[in-house]
């Protein structure tokens, strides 16, 4: 069998099918695709497991906890599907392996520290900005929402604005 490891689907085909999945999400459930919302649910579930009273009282998690179990949510099931889908696709392309993705010019340690810090920025940013690239921007753009376009300008505009400072990590 041919080595597919470095072969990727045509980006427009991938985008088109993600677009169809997004339409389906709105059509069946009235929801957009998202992922930071699922992270948030997991965090709130951990609060709820440790102390239900705290989770109820905290302004951060109160509204979610008072509405039922935090993991009983569309986004959580969607993200489980995302993980399954990614594993299926990686298995087909032969990309299912332990590996650190990085620029060849930096060490593994640098890469992992940067990844951790990057994750922390995302964690705060998504909560403040009400969603991530999928939940805020892509799903927002799909319904012509102003907030989606503000997110687009901020995330990608900001990316180009700050790219120079982080170039050593990538090129």
């Amino acid at each position, binding site marked *: 069998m041919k080595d597919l490891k470095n072969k990727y689907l045509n980006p427009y085909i991938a985008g088109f099918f993600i677009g169809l999945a997004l339409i389906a999400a709105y059509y069946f459930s009235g929801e*957009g695709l998202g992922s930071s*919302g699922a992270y948030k649910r997991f965090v709130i579930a951990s609060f709820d497991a440790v102390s239900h009273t705290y989770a109820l009282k905290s302004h951060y998690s109160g509204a979610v906890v008072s509405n039922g179990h935090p993991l009983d949510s569309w986004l959580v099931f969607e993200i489980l599907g995302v993980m399954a889908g990614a594993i299926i696709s990686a298995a087909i392309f032969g990309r299912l392996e332990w590996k650190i993705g990085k620029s060849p010019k930096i060490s593994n340690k640098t890469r992992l520290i940067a990844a951790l810090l990057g994750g922390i920025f995302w964690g705060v940013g*998504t909560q403040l900005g009400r969603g991530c690239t999928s939940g805020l921007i892509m799903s927002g753009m799909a319904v012509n929402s102003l907030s989606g376009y503000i997110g687009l300008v901020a995330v990608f505009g900001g990316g180009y604005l700050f790219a120079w400072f982080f170039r050593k990590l990538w090129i």
Partner: protein
Amino acid sequence: MKKTSLFIFALLLLGGLWSAFLPNVKTHVERVPNKDLITLVNYKARYVSVDDIARALMNQDKMLLLVDVRMPEQYKQFSLPGAINMPIDSLLNETNQQLLSGSDVYNIVFFSNGTSLADKAWLIATAAGFKNLHVLKGGLNAWFNDLLQPKRPADWAKQAEFQKYEFRRAAARFFTGATGGEESSSQPKVKVQVPVKKKQVGGGCE
């Protein structure tokens, strides 16, 4: 450029052209445009009096939701029986929006010390699309000065004035007696059932 890519471009363009030739629709919730704010400010029907509130509380009206828009410290010191706290600077956070959206079932009344802060809250919430909201005219000042310490009308006043005076004296006995006076009533005595919208569309990453 590969053929598949061009095919997707063609599909996208077709979709775009198709959309552009369809009539425009409003697909989002209608909001109050700014030019109507003046009309809103002059809309007097939002006011309810302390007597209305007192009567509703004495009758244990379950459909009444009193909302204290002052700061939490003030709310903790004293508030009306059963009132919940929505400080004006977090008036439209998620929890509060959910409560406010119950306004088709509940009579929601904003109050503050005077009238102006509650008016401001009313304007913010109404402009954000919430309906059937009210403001307590005179606020807690009126509650203490007019309701709990009613002044005897002059002898030549109309009969209605005397009836109001009698009602206020009864109300004063009810509230200062039944709730043990203003000093000790830091905890709301009447529990208000909080409305929660069913089958709410969550979505996104909010």
